[in-house]
């Protein structure tokens, strides 16, 4: 079936994207919106919204996305790393009306950076902007935080179908750039990228992640 990683030449890119976020932030609706919008219901796989695939065409290159939903519940986190190993991208969703869900995103960012280093493209997504009136996470805070950890920040509303298409398109482009840079760095070794990345790579805490842990957040509660 799929040849893991990104192929060289004119081959199709296969990217794995993990979806992280607390229980009620709406990540399932977000990804369902994205996958059912352009295509019809049959693109919802037999695993419903847990595992979705999407085929794209960006700048003449074919891209296959495999979107892995993860459980938000704390009790399933022990095996988090096996979900996001070999991921090319991660979408970390929080609910703008729920400060707590934003804190969770910060924890995941730390863990992802620790396990995958800088190879993974991070998207931090404030969902439910249709509930702007009840916002509890300030736009400035969220965006500053995202920048400080090398992530991009997006605002979406699954309900109004806002910002979702842009989010995924942007992520795909970034993952393609990363893959291309990777290919160049490795010379001809592009086809080996899947095998080379087998297993979880552990790197030391990034200095930026450390500073974030120190003074990134302003309010607690």
């Amino acid at each position, binding site marked *: *079936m*799929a*040849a*893991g990683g990104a192929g060289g030449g004119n081959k199709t890119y*296969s990217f*794995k994207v993990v*979806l992280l976020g607390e*229980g009620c932030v709406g*990540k*399932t*609706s977000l*990804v*369902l919106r994205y996958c*059912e919008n352009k295509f019809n*219901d049959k693109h*919802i*796989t*037999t*695993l*419903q*919204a*847990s*595992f979705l*695939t999407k085929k794209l065409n960006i700048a003449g290159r074919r891209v296959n996305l*495999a979107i*892995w*939903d*993860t*459980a*938000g*519940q704390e*009790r*399933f986190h*022990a*095996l988090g*790393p*096996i*979900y996001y190993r*070999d991921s090319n991208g991660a979408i970390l969703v929080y609910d703008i009306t729920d400060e707590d869900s934003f804190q969770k995103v910060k924890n995941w960012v730390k863990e992802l950076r620790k396990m995958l280093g800088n190879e993974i493209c991070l998207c931090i997504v404030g969902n439910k902007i249709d509930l702007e009136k009840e916002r509890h996470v300030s736009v400035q805070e969220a965006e500053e935080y995202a920048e400080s950890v090398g992530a991009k920040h997006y605002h979406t509303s699954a309900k109004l179908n806002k910002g979702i298409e842009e989010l995924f398109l942007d992520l795909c482009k970034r993952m393609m750039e990363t893959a291309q840079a990777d290919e160049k760095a490795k010379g001809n070794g592009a086809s080996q990228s*899947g*095998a080379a990345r*087998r297993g979880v790579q552990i790197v030391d805490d990034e200095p930026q992640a450390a500073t974030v842990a120190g003074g990134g957040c302003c309010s607690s509660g």
Partner: protein
Amino acid sequence: MASGALDGGLRPLQIAMKLANAAVELEAGERHKEAYCEYLRSINYISQTLLEDAVSKPDGEMVTMEVERMLRLAEQCLERVKSYAGRRSDIASSSLLWPRLPPRPQRRRAEKGGDVAPKTSPRPAPGHRRVLSDGSPVGDGVAAPFLPPEIFHKLQEAESYDAKKELTPIEEASRLNQKLKATYEARLARLPPGQATQKTSLTLSLQRQMMENLIIAKARQDALHRKMEERRLRLQEEANRRFAGSGLITPEEQEQRLLYANVLEYEQDHDWPKLWKAKMKKDPGDAALVAGLIAYLLSCPDHPVMKLLKRLQYRIYNRLYPISETSFDGVSRDLNANEEDPAPASEAPPSPRPRDGSFEDLERYLATPDLSPAPGPAPGPDDDARLLSLEERALREHLRTIVKDVHNAVDRLLSLCLLSFECLNTASAKDVCLASIEEAFFAPLWRPLLALFRKVHRDREQAFEAGVRLYRDAAPGDVGVAPKLFPSDPAALQGSYPYEAAVLELQQLSRDTCPQKKLECIVRTLRLICVCAEEYRTLQDPDAPPSTAAIGADDLLPILSFVALRSALPQLVSECAALEEFIHEGYLIGEEGYCLTSMQSALSYVESLGGGAPHR
């Protein structure tokens, strides 16, 4: 079939075949004694019929063809009987580990002789597959002990036994000589007493003839040898030319050259590779053709690919055996089958371990303290702990090497396969190739491999068992399944429980012996969960549009945990750990990988219910 020479319902040949067939079936069903008797009965019947016929009818009444077929059948039955007689003494003296007769080529011959065997497969059913593969605790619950490597090896050879093998010149000559000798003895017996000169002359002439035969045969054999050797060298050179290039050659390259020469040699003796290659050339994209070729290759035990497969299998089995043999496999059991026995299962009698194990160091560690207390002064608790951790380390290390060996073996097989059939070197054909090779390769190895994994993951399995014991009867809601995703009224399910279909599917996992098939089973389980979830949801809220309620991981994992609990199979932990090692990365990114990951996550959650520490 038109000759009804003997009337009265069934013809004798048909009756004889029926009898023989019954015997074959008994043998297949492991009912050896009955099979033995049935074979004898068949022979008895045949000789009785022939005798009656010969006595009662004038010459030529019975069609010669039928007599011949009857006789051939009798011969085949006699062969089985003989092999039983031989076996019996073997079994009595050596061990009871080998529950099955070895080669059963007679099935193949019987087929030619008279449609006795079922017509399903023209090649002999691989015996060891059957013996080793049904480790399914779901099935019979009794795990058969592992065969000692020597017997495993014999089995492999039996499987590759070729009934049509030609005799060497010497063998032919010795047959001829035996016939001569028989004639000589007959003549001698007919001689009137006192004819000493004639007797001497007969004896001398016999000796001369026999000697001549042998000398001729020897010369022919030598010539043949020389020719074969010349050919071998020529082919080896051809192989070397093909790999020419680099100055220094590694042992691997050396081996590859040798193997390739073997392939060339094989192709001189057999036509089928050429025929298949021609077919492939005509229609390179035909997936059915690719599958056909690979299936054919796998059915040719003499092909170098298959020989290599056997060799590598044996090597790995040999390394697994000293450990798996003291397997924890028969120890931890299917919880469903042992409801009334809550004692932690760890007192299975250790079976005798062979002394010639290739891993003496490990054997020492594996004089497992959990199975038999070490002799001599009782070790203190510290020693115990140290020994345990040493053992654990050694086991893990061993597991790692074995996993590496397996990967290595599969790689080598694939590359030899592609070398033999360059036409298979396309992305899709390669996948088919790999899948088939793995299926054949893992079939006899999965059970001992799993036993090793189970030893290494024993703690996790025990935690899982504890979790199951605590939560076996829990409702879906107790493990966090959303209320909308299971029927609030259990009666709505008419005697079954929620997600039963998925549980039953998951319990089939141990049936297969090939990683890919197991992975498919996990995928089916998750799909069934989604189907059930959808059903339960519409039951409660018939108006909701289907897509808005599609379940995500937040819903899926609690359900999956529930299903894992209900399956009550602690070995799932080890099966999944093994799958993770043996599934190709290409699959890990897709749906299969997602399902395996989710399954592991759910298992880990069940372990945590039983007090197990997170293992990663």
